[in-house]
């Protein structure tokens, strides 16, 4: 639950500010992750700070998507998927650079594909009803 919420926070903050306020996505993702790490490091132990900041960091990668590619609902869905997938995949890819990014990429791609297929099938349904 906390893992999903952390990923969701990272994704939504980055997505909202990079798309509506036109802040550079790289700067936003890195600055918020750094801030999150230091706040968590001050209030919790180092192991928890490392784990949750990694999840937040991964969430910000989802949030680096453009609004033309994925909607707010899509970002929420991808973050939930990331929260679950990170618990399964990340222990297997420990110590491999880019593991968080590739997990985020897989989640965004799955959500984009499902959205595209749903749009395609609803287009076919409305056409056959005419």
């Amino acid at each position: 639950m906390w893992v999903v919420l952390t990923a969701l926070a990272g994704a939504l903050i980055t997505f909202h500010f990079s798309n509506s306020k036109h802040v550079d996505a790289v700067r936003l993702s890195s600055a918020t992750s750094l801030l999150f790490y230091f706040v968590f490091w001050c209030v919790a132990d180092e192991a928890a700070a490392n784990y949750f900041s990694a999840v937040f960091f991964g969430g910000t990668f989802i949030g680096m998507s453009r609004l033309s590619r994925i909607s707010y609902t899509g970002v929420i869905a991808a973050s939930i998927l990331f929260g679950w997938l990170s618990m399964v995949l990340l222990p297997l890819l420990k110590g491999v650079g880019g593991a968080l990014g590739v997990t985020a990429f897989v989640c965004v791609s799955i959500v984009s594909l499902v959205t595209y297929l749903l749009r395609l099938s609803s287009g076919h349904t409305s056409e056959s009803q005419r």
Partner: protein
Amino acid sequence: MKNTITFFFVQLLAFLVGLSSCFFLHHNLSLSSVASAAFVGLVGSFIPHHKVFETHPRGAVYTGAFAGMCSAELIQNTTDLFLISLVGALIYTTIKSHLFGLGGKLGAIAFSAVAIVVLLKQGVM
């Protein structure tokens, strides 16, 4: 063609700087991998916008930083650093105009570069 080659070398340099800086902060200064990558990405995000390269050097520094989150068992020497940068810059240059706006693209490039070099070293590929 000339522009693509120049773009590749700029990306290679940016990737190498991001990768080495993050790896150094993580392993030599014992900073956490997330804090190291985020710090390098934040510094890299201040690279000025260029009319030809646009904001790609910032992206390459951040991609390099993701690759630099590797453990010391995977990146053992400077040759590894250079090889990962070379493969990463090559992938970045090849797909720069594809998958635009898909989150995690930079991380996927970093992961692919690391995986290719590690598999090559182990003689799998």
